[in-house]
């Protein structure tokens, strides 16, 4: 995984609550056995009409959102299915952070494992961000994970919470599997003292 560095970017605003992973990447695209091509299918049914042409009123198709690396969305973003295809699609498209008032648990975990930063901001700031964006859709925000701050166009820096362990993994560009593998001794000790309740190989 590449290291997560500070960046500044335009914002794509999606003022909808409870955006579910079926919208982020519709189920019919999950028949793939790889991770390739998912960026093109991101928000497919909101992004394209029945004939496959971009819908001009969908945010990702607006000129202001070109090159946006930050998605600003409504409450409880990423609810629904556990498909990791959702953060894969978002990152392949180019997003590096999503801002909301809350995230669904599994989506948040999946995102952190894929270099996509879920940024939780207070309701007040959230509303302000949408208002600022409505006034200036070309506004930019700066994300600094080292400092855990989001810098607004007016210069204010808003702190956001991140799990310290996930933050370290993102900043160092390492994944958690390596960390678990280092705990071989503890895992082996657990197995030695706990009999397995089942054996799927032996019924």
């Amino acid at each position, binding site marked *: 995984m590449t290291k997560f560095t500070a960046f500044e970017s335009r914002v794509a605003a999606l*003022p*909808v*609550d*409870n955006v*579910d992973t*079926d*919208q982020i990447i*519709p*189920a*019919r695209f*999950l*028949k*793939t*056995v*790889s*991770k390739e091509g998912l960026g093109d299918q991101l928000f497919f*049914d909101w992004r394209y009409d*029945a004939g496959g042409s971009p819908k001009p009123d969908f945010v990702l198709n607006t000129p202001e959102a070109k090159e946006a690396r930050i998605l600003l969305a*409504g*409450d*409880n973003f990423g*609810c*629904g*299915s*556990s*498909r*990791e295809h959702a*953060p894969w699609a978002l990152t392949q498209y180019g997003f590096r952070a999503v801002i909301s008032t*809350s*995230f*669904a*648990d*599994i989506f948040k*975990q*999946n995102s952190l*494992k*894929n270099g996509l930063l879920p940024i939780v901001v207070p309701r007040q700031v959230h509303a302000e961000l*949408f208002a600022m964006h409505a006034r200036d859709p070309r506004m930019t925000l700066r994300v600094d994970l080292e400092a855990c701050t989001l810098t607004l166009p007016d210069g204010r820096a808003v702190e956001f919470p991140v*799990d*310290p*362990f996930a933050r370290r993994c993102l900043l160092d560009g390492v*994944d*958690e*599997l390596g*960390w*678990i*593998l280092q*705990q071989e001794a*503890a*895992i082996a000790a*657990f*197995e030695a003292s*706990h009999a*397995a*309740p*089942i054996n*799927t*190989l*032996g*019924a």
Partner: protein
Amino acid sequence: MTRPRTIIEKVWDAHLVSEQPGAPALLYIDLHLVHEVTSPQAFDGLRRRGLKVRRPDLTQATVDHGTPTTPRTLPILDQVAAAQVARLEANCREFGIPCFGFLSDKQGVVHVIGPEQGLTQPGMTVVCGDSHTATHGAFGALAFGIGTSEVEMVLATQCLPQRRSKTFKVEVNGALKPGVSAKDIILALIARIGVGGGTGCVIEYCGSTIRALSMEERMTVTNMSIEGGARAGMIAPDNVTYQYLHGRPFAPQGAAWEAALERWRRLPTDEGAAYDKEISIDAAALEPMITFGTNPGMGIPISGAVPDPAAVADPLERETLSKALKYMALEPGKPLLGRPIDVVFVGSCTNGRLADLRAAASVLKGRKVNPRVRMLVVPGSQPVKRQAEAEGLDEIFRAAGAEWREAGCSMCIAMNGDQLEPGQYSVSTSNRNFEGRQGKGGRTLLASPLTAAASAVNGVISDVRTLL
């Protein structure tokens, strides 16, 4: 005296491999269920790193999401789906994992087969690359959905880094009225707490109503914990649980059964244990529930009216509700009862078990599906299908004009060709009504098997109590 603990904490504590300051806890996983959609990239990861599957004996795979529900004598016609199924079967062979493949007589929806085979047991930790893993919590297991990166971690190490969740007690008391079922309890709960209401929490369902439910009904409740935002939902085991498990292929036997019973009886929450959140529901006041919108929290009693966005104060919430009603083409303030429908789907890991099929059949017996309606009945697994056929349920469905199909996820997720046409309305016993969930442009109304069957008969959204 140790501090009184909830069942959630007991199962967590019993699976702690390590807990270091500044890092998540490492939790041991007793059962890992695998299916074709969320696993191929995880197996690729193992190959890339040169890792093996640590505990194939704690892992079970099946195919369900993309498999057709047409007769098994036909091959999988969708080449992309066929390749994904073949990939899982090949990965399982390569890594030594047992798999109930496409032609297995044990194949079925991953959350149906675990309990059915006795793999899911009280006090276990269970994971699967699927959010409805919460289902298995009905047995007093701590069971939750994970992403593909986590699938890879569990395959490689049988462990998962986890942060402790908050505990959420949902107490349901009172007797359900006729026509009101487990599905209505959970739809009512989600309508009340919202689709984010359980975020960060594990729910424990308790109370006299939950105790009176069968295991199958309990699974309907825990299954949809995720629709309330909770990763897991648990029900303490009792005699209903033990009776269900006894004699199942993977359940302990003889002396091991007695020892397991002794362990399991210590699992229920201690007197005086504290929860982070609590809510109670009066079961006697519940009506059959149905959803009108595009998330499972948008539910109302069957006789209710579609809510009006104008009455919602929060602008984003109002916008979200308006968008949902526009997609569903429903008018605020109008009742749902009597609205024509096109499709009825009975099946899924929420309501695809024998008890669900029996409920639907009880309404259809001696009646016909309205000619306007296509009704699909999809058993949750091959064993469910065989049992239903042994009882003659398939005959009741066929005689009524419904389609009796092979086991799988089918129109719950519409990956296998079973899907709605754009604009169609379905009453579905599944768990998600997101835009396009049952097919691009399709409109889903979630309800119980009873409500679904009644609506199939009348061709319009119906209150099953008029047919009882």
